[in-house]
């Protein structure tokens, strides 16, 4: 009997809807909890603002961030230059707007390399245990033992100073934390009854890894990722500050702090504003990360779910 294609499609569609519904409900609860945490909202707004600046900063900058304008050098903050000008007469605000993208790029690239690498190694170590675990963990310890900035500096010195090389260097020292995190989770999940049940029915190691261990790791990874964003940006800025990352004339914020160091007494605005910018961004991601951690906490969710449901039913009953 030929079933018309449209009927097949609709039943598969309905199935997908039915499966999607509980997942979207869970995310809905997550956003509800987030919305109601003042600190998380503040952090989220800061992070969002930073993201927008990174995307559109160059277009928004009123002055050219690169070319010099010597006669306007060392102007204090004023109406025409809200954050002042630097030693080359460039508008500090425009430089910051144009430079944000470099910090975010650094953050994203480092995490894009470090997180998958760390998760994979940590997962394998935790799942298999035994000598595999030992070997991977000792390698992890080795990388953790290195002072990260020193190692990054060595890398930069060897490969040549540039923001790109700084990002490679940071990735190398950033993955161990994720490896440890996922390994711990893997060890815990491995001992649960539901994994034992799966094994008793013949589940392979890959099945355990992808169906049980990794999904149960998503929450801690997401939280750590968010918190880390701020720290990677700081680390990239630190490297640039020390001269190993972004090179002039790139208006990377850490570089800007470094450039303005010797002029602190004369033109404090050159270092202070980029420095405050970094502080604010880190704060934003930290608050957002804490907020996400709370919103994923099962106990808090269970408590909040009651008020959330009540609000939903009362709003729908007033229709």
């Amino acid at each position: 009997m030929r079933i018309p294609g449209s009927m097949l499609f609709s039943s598969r569609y309905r199935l997908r809807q039915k499966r999607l519904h509980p997942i979207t409900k869970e995310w809905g609860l997550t956003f509800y909890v987030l919305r109601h945490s003042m600190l998380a909202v503040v952090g989220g707004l800061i992070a969002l603002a930073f993201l927008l600046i990174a995307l559109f900063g160059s277009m928004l900058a009123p002055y050219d961030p690169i070319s010099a304008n010597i006669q306007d050098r060392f102007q204090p903050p004023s109406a025409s230059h809200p954050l002042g000008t630097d030693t080359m007469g460039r508008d500090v605000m425009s430089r910051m707007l144009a430079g944000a993208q470099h910090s975010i790029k650094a953050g994203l690239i480092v995490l894009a390399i470090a997180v998958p690498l760390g998760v994979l190694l940590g997962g394998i170590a935790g799942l298999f245990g035994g000598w595999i675990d030992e070997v991977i963990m000792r390698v992890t310890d080795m990388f953790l033992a290195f002072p990260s900035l020193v190692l990054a500096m060595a890398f930069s010195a060897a490969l040549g100073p540039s923001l790109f090389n700084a990002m490679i260097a940071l990735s190398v020292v950033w993955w161990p934390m994720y490896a440890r995190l996922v390994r711990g989770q893997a060890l815990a999940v491995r001992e649960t009854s539901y994994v034992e049940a799966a094994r008793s029915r013949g589940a392979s190691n890959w099945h355990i890894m992808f169906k049980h261990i990794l999904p149960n790791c998503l929450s801690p990874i997401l939280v750590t990722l968010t918190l880390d964003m701020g720290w990677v940006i700081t680390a990239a800025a630190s490297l640039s500050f020390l001269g190993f990352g972004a090179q002039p004339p790139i208006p990377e914020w850490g570089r800007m702090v470094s450039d303005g160091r010797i002029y602190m007494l004369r033109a404090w605005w050159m270092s202070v504003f980029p420095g405050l910018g970094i502080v604010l961004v880190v704060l934003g991601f930290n608050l957002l990360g804490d907020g996400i951690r709370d919103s994923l906490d099962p106990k808090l969710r269970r408590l909040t779910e009651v008020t959330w449901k009540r609000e939903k039913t009362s709003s729908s009953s007033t229709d």
Partner: protein
Amino acid sequence: MTTALFECRNLTKFFPIRSLLRETGRVHAVEDVNLIIPEGGTVGLVGESGCGKTTLARTILLLIDPTSGQVIFRGEDMASRSKRDLRQFRRETAIVFQDPYSSLDPRMLIADVVGEPLVIHKVAFGEDRDNLVLSLLKRVGLEADHMYRYPHEFSGGQRQRLAIARALAADPKFILLDEATSALDVSVQAKILNMLNGLKADLRLTYMFISHDLSVVRHLSDHIGVMYLGRMVEYGTREQVFDTPTHPYTRGLLAAAPSLDPNDRDRPREVVLQGEVPSAVEPPSGCRFHPRCPGRKPECDRVRPELIDIGDGHLVACLPE
């Protein structure tokens, strides 16, 4: 004459205690156990902490490798199994655990939790799989709108039903129930026990039921094995073990379990077991039970009693009078 689904011969398992790579002691978890599980039967295992019933069950299911002895499934020695044999074995056997709150992955939808064995054995995909899961849920008394929810929305009794539904996926022949009703209230337990009995009849299953609760074991099992410190001390049909308990430990165990008749409190108990269960690391010599045995004889600390058939397959491991 029913065939034996499982047969254990001289099954022994000990866990070494290591200190700096040297073995300083052993936990004698299971020692020289012989057991036959007939197809279609329910074998109950009773015993107190340290008796080895949990280890024995997991060794039978090949989740733990025995130190020595054989596990024979459908006449085939599983030690010499091929990968394909093992896969088939895993499809035909399943476990239901004691704690309903940790035996379901909290991050998975019910449809995926119960359907996991179908995924592992590639029985069905997509919508077909979900339809199979739905029929499993109906079998354990749950509804269609339970399919796409998370485990935390269900009560303990419902979760245990879900665990049983998962065990039934992919058509197993044998289910190990490891204290499966111990964490449930009496009224919930009654429903689950009735359901288990019904499923066994409908689907022609074989059960092994482990419990410390003698009345539950009696209700469900047709054969019962009593274990003490890693050894099987008595084995027989339900009537043999409960109506004519012979081993002193079995008699003490049955006497210790409080009865539902208030008038029994005035009657003096024939056996009162004193003392504690000794450690499995340094078990008593000879008969493991001799330090607590009211009928101890001089040779009981030297000679290890074998299981003797005292009639109709009723086995007791005690030195004869």
